[in-house]
């Protein structure tokens, strides 16, 4: 028995449905190359030919292959053709091709590995539905999992499904999601919160932004299911202020869901109550750390505090709080829908399901992909990504951003999962994947990330505040040719000290880019030292 709310929305979507659809990607990347103008041109074209009854011009979210934007897909119920690098001048020819032969010169082949190797769960609706219409989301089965959970399942059964799915946190550390939920669910606290971390701060990562821009209701549904499972009635999405489009779409989605009685009091006529509010970040990477994020929601400086107590025991406003990131929540509806065991059949033994990656850097096909865990790194960067443009050689693949490491070419055949990545000295991270070719100087790469960690350090604990500064100093000296003989051993000592003594994850993982490049490209550091002529003895000064 589906709820009246969902039936009404489905009917609304059906009434709007047309035989043909022109789907224009209007996610941020395509927008920046003129997708808005293309969208308008198509609308004008359809309007001019008076075919509104047969053709819908639909603004959709991210289609994935950002490097070929603006992307447009022309489809009817049987076929779909994807077009690349579409300009407003192409609109007329493309619109006229409906019902006739496709426009060959603009076709973007979809039978290539970039598309065929993907396994879409989180991104299933991205590039398909109109992100600003709740009825589109409902028409493809949206909010059914929530409805089923709150009407047919106990919170314990939902929790059991999430545990059975084997889902691990997609924000970086990979903590088992089910265990986190269980801790919050068990807490006797009468007031609990559910928080969504959308403070995607890794430079080179834009997965969460794309999901929020392309399919915001999926995240809200995941949060609502989580709230039901752990017994919370209030939620916050903490999202970067730098993502205005994601923010406005999320705001709209919350309003729509409230109006459709899918958020708020008595959700879908049940006794379940859940409201969501948005809090804006303000440009601090450290706020991706959960205790810092919670302080930021409370209007404070985002400086992490020692754990325990964990947020699951004492979090937002001192209450039991569940924090997961965008991609984690985006998996939940599917897990409840298909069952935890079905989800667990995807991926590897210890890393279940799929992972979204933002593929960028010196690689032909840049964009957003979702692949099953366990796929090899080579498949991603060479087959799907198409390798280095103009046939260069891949030198390294960087994953995990400033907390991760560089994986050298000889390890490209490794499977991509939490444990394998850790073994080679990197981390899964939130999903940034940057391809580097032979032109990259690895000491420079390490300095780049250290500059990032240094200026994003909150300044609370000594090792991170001063240690990142000193490591950056040493790397800068190496690159400018004035490093001293003791600098390399001091650098190594600092990587250990900062990694082991810093207060939070940002500081503890800040040395990772140096550690991994030292491990695989030590000769580049030694080369930099050999070329150095220290102008003055900087090391070995006495205490004054």
């Amino acid at each position, binding site marked *: 028995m589906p709820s009246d709310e969902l039936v009404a929305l489905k009917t609304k979507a059906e009434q709007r449905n047309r035989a043909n659809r022109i789907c224009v990607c209007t996610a941020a990347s395509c927008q920046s*190359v003129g997708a808005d103008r293309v969208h308008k041109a198509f609308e004008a074209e359809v309007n001019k030919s008076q075919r509104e009854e047969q053709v819908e011009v639909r603004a959709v979210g991210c289609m994935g292959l950002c490097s070929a934007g603006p992307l447009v897909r022309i489809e009817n119920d049987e076929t779909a053709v994807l077009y690349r690098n579409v300009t407003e001048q192409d609109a007329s020819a493309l619109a006229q091709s409906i019902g006739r032969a496709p426009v060959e010169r603009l076709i973007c082949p979809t039978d290539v590995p970039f598309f065929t190797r993907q396994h879409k769960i989180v991104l299933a609706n991205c590039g398909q539905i109109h992100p600003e219409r709740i009825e589109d989301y409902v028409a493809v089965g949206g909010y059914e999992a929530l409805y089923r959970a709150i009407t047919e399942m106990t919170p314990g059964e939902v929790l059991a499904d999430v545990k059975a799915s084997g889902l691990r946190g997609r924000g970086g550390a990979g903590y088992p999601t089910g265990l986190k939920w269980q801790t919050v669910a068990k807490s006797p606290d009468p007031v609990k919160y559910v928080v969504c971390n959308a403070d995607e701060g890794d*430079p*080179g990562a834009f997965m969460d932004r794309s999901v929020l821009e392309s399919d915001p209701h999926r995240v809200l549904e995941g949060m609502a299911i989580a709230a039901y499972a752990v017994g919370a009635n209030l939620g916050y999405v903490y999202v970067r202020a*730098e993502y205005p489009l994601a923010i406005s779409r999320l705001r709209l989605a919350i309003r729509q869901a409230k109006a459709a009685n899918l958020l708020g009091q008595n959700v879908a006529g049940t006794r379940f109550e859940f409201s969501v509010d948005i*809090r804006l970040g303000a440009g601090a990477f450290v706020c991706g750390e959960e205790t810092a994020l919670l302080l930021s929601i409370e209007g404070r*400086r985002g400086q992490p505090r020692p754990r325990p107590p964990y947020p699951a025991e004492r979090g937002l406003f001192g209450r039991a709080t569940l924090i997961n990131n965008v991609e984690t929540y985006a998996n939940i509806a599917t897990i409840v829908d298909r069952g935890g065991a079905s989800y667990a059949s995807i991926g590897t033994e210890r890393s279940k399901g799929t992972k979204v990656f933002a593929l960028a850097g010196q690689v032909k096909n840049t964009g957003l992909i979702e692949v099953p865990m366990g796929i090899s790194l080579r498949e991603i960067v060479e087959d799907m990504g198409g390798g280095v443009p103009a046939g260069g050689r891949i030198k390294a693949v960087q994953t995990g951003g400033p907390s991760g490491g560089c994986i050298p070419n000889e390890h490209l055949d490794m499977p991509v999962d939490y444990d394998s990545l850790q073994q080679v000295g990197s981390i899964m991270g939130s999903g940034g994947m940057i391809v580097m070719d032979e032109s990259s100087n690895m000491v420079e790469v390490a300095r780049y990330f250290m500059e990032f960690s240094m200026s994003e350090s909150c300044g609370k604990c000594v090792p991170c505040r001063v240690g990142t500064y000193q490591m950056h100093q040493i790397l800068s000296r190496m690159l400018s040719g004035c490093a001293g003989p003791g600098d390399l051993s001091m650098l190594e000592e600092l990587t250990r000290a900062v990694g082991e003594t810093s207060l939070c994850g940002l500081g503890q993982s800040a040395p990772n880019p140096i550690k991994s490049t030292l491990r695989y490209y030590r000769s580049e550091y030694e080369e930099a030292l050999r070329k150095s002529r220290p102008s003055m003895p900087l090391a070995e000064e006495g205490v004054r």
Partner: protein
Amino acid sequence: MCPQTVRNEAPSDDKRWKIINATMRRNGDDSHALIETLHSVQETFGYLDDVALSYVAKSLRTPLSRVYGVATFYHFFTLKPQGEHSCVVCTGTACHIKGAQALLSAIKGSFGVAPGETTADNKLSVISARCIGSCGLAPAVVIDGNVMGNLSPQTLVARVEREIG
């Protein structure tokens, strides 16, 4: 502590303070609303000055030093007025390895301003961003709110020159 019933008087009769008041009220006039309120002030007035910070502190019953601490902790907030035009150069990883530094040097060379600075004639503010999420288009720049990708130093300088006239 006696509850505050009357709203503090706005620093001036500028109508825009009503927007700030509305933000604070929506968030319960509580110190938790500090960051949301600072966003609102910056969106409304362009930057955060001492007058606004004092007013927000008083209205939200939050210590002045805490307000200043928060305003300077988050790099999204600026305490200085910005130029007429803004040029945000992304220095995320993808942009970095595809030449963001060259873009910054070109801007510095042509207009004499580094990230965080504004030209003397107040025409152009240059800002470096951590990652604007347009990695597929690296290197990317946002000029007056419009994202542009795949830029060379020459095209960027030409484009900025056109914008600031």
